[in-house]
């Protein structure tokens, strides 16, 4: 059992380790490991305007996606959990499965067909890119929120606040938002982690000026290995940071959940 675990960990870590090694190696052709040690590849990535532009585009897309997903996800999850009707809650959970279950490439082609007509000529726009990311990430956010809201019995907390005289908006700001805050943050970090690494859909629908980092990254592999490795490591570090933050916050939320 321990052997399997270790084998898996090595299998998981090896490509990442090789990327890190490759990003710092001076030359890597026809040898097992690169030779020499250099920071030139990272410098080269930072000096490449298309990479820098894509990096900031990715952050912009991810940031906007988080804001839009929060504005849609919080009310949606709240409504689904507190409606009191099992069926409504189930419908939302089912609908949310569609973007998760459908292959991204089918969504991408769907977007291409739907948004290249004369009436809906939005293919290639920044807004449509964000809309695509929202579609892909919203299920994770809503699922996190719905699970936490149900576990915390937010509905009963709200009823308790109501019985003390608090009307809807008062309850919203006094109870719903603060109680869901950790959960919302956890969900949003997941949203960010997915959005930042998203390639398939973005590659199909992003305009040339709004190409995200993973799209540009693909180009890097046609060039020097060291450059490609360095560019990948940057994305990896960014994703790992968001991923770790998500896990930490999620653990914090579950500590707060009453037994």
């Amino acid at each position, binding site marked *: 059992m321990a052997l399997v675990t270790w084998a898996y960990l090595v299998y998981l870590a090896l490509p990442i380790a090789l990327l890190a090694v490759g990003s710092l190696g001076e030359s890597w052709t026809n040898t097992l490991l690169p030779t020499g040690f250099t920071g030139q590849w990272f410098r080269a990535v930072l000096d490449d305007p298309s990479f820098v532009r894509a990096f900031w585009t990715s952050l912009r897309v991810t940031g906007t996606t988080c804001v839009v997903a929060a504005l849609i996800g919080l009310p949606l999850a709240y409504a689904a959990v507190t409606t009191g009707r099992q069926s409504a809650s189930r419908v939302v959970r089912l609908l949310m499965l569609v973007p998760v279950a459908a292959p991204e490439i089918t969504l991408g082609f769907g977007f291409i067909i739907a948004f290249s007509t004369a009436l809906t000529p939005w293919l290639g726009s920044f807004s449509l890119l964000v809309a695509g990311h929202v579609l892909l990430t919203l299920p994770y956010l809503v699922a996190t929120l719905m699970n936490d809201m149900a576990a915390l019995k937010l509905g009963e907390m709200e*009823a308790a606040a*109501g*019985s003390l*005289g608090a009307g809807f908006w008062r309850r919203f700001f*006094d*109870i719903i938002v603060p109680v869901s805050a950790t959960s919302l943050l956890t969900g949003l970090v997941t949203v960010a982690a997915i959005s930042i690494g998203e390639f398939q859909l973005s590659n199909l629908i992003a305009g040339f000026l709004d190409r995200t980092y993973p799209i540009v990254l693909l180009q890097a592999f046609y060039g020097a290995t060291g450059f490609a490795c360095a560019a990948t490591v940057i994305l990896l570090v960014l994703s790992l940071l968001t991923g770790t933050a998500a896990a930490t916050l999620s653990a914090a939320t579950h500590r707060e959940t009453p037994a």
Partner: protein
Amino acid sequence: MSGKELRLQGCAKTYPDGTRALSPVDLRVDAGEIVVLLGPSGCGKTTLLRMVAGLDRPDEGGRVLLDGRDVTALPIEKRGVGMVFQSYALFPHMSVAGNIGYGLRVQGWSRKRRDERVAELLATARLEEFAGRRVDQLSGGQRQRVALARALAPGSGMILLDEPLTALDAGLREGLRAEIAAMIKAQGATALYVTHDQAEALTLGDRLVVMDKGRIAQVGAPRDVYYRPQSDYVAGFFGPVNRLSGRVEHGVFTTASGTLPVPGRPDGETVLAFRPEAAIVGQDGGLAFRVTNALFEGSRQRLDLEGPAGERLVAHAPGIRPYSPGDTVTIGIDPDGLLAPAGGADAVN
């Protein structure tokens, strides 16, 4: 402050799919009274509570009145009814004092009055030293006392409790029953209390409302409901009921297993109904029964008995003297323990 009077008139609840959760119910709860809604899950007790809270609306024609004012159309925040839930539903981002004072803050009490009132309730709930604690640092029993103090704080005079003790373990539950009743009485509030636990209902309630399948089966004081059940359902809800059929002649009851004096009982065929604790095990000259099973429960033991004609009884005996299957015992019946159903003896058959 004083408790509100609650009246329900023709309150029924039918769900959109046609399921009847509650048949039309009329009920009156006097000011300052604790009324317990008792029944198994699905009997409609929680639906009734939610109607009073304003979380559910009764079907057309049903009315909820608080102190004579029709509140049927009012949402929960306009009703002035405090709520206590099984899950406590405390606000996790507020301290104990913050939770208790929340209603006062919402209702715009001044800082000074708020602090005084919170201090008063902390004392009533024996929570003074926990005022600044986070609620997740409290035990279940303490949390429920915070929840009750929070519901009582605004002094709205009406408290609704939905299975407040069900999440706690047995030992704690018993202690808290008395304490909850005392806190409610001390604040003079009227309370509607939902539970499925008979012991809790009997201990806490000024009156019980026993419910069955969306209807009220019986309303009465705890002793009334326990000793004068109007139906098999109500009798059986509080535990097993023994029934012995026989004949009374000149104040003596004769049955297959012997005779017993039953002074004052009219002559004729009859059925004696009594609970296990009304059987007097080992009474001289009682009815002869054979023990088929003995279950030692500590302070008492439960005996399953069989008579010569195959009639079965359950009797409670003190725990100290051991009985084994096959033993023969004599059984008397405490005349005060005979169930006298309001609808006549036949109703228990």
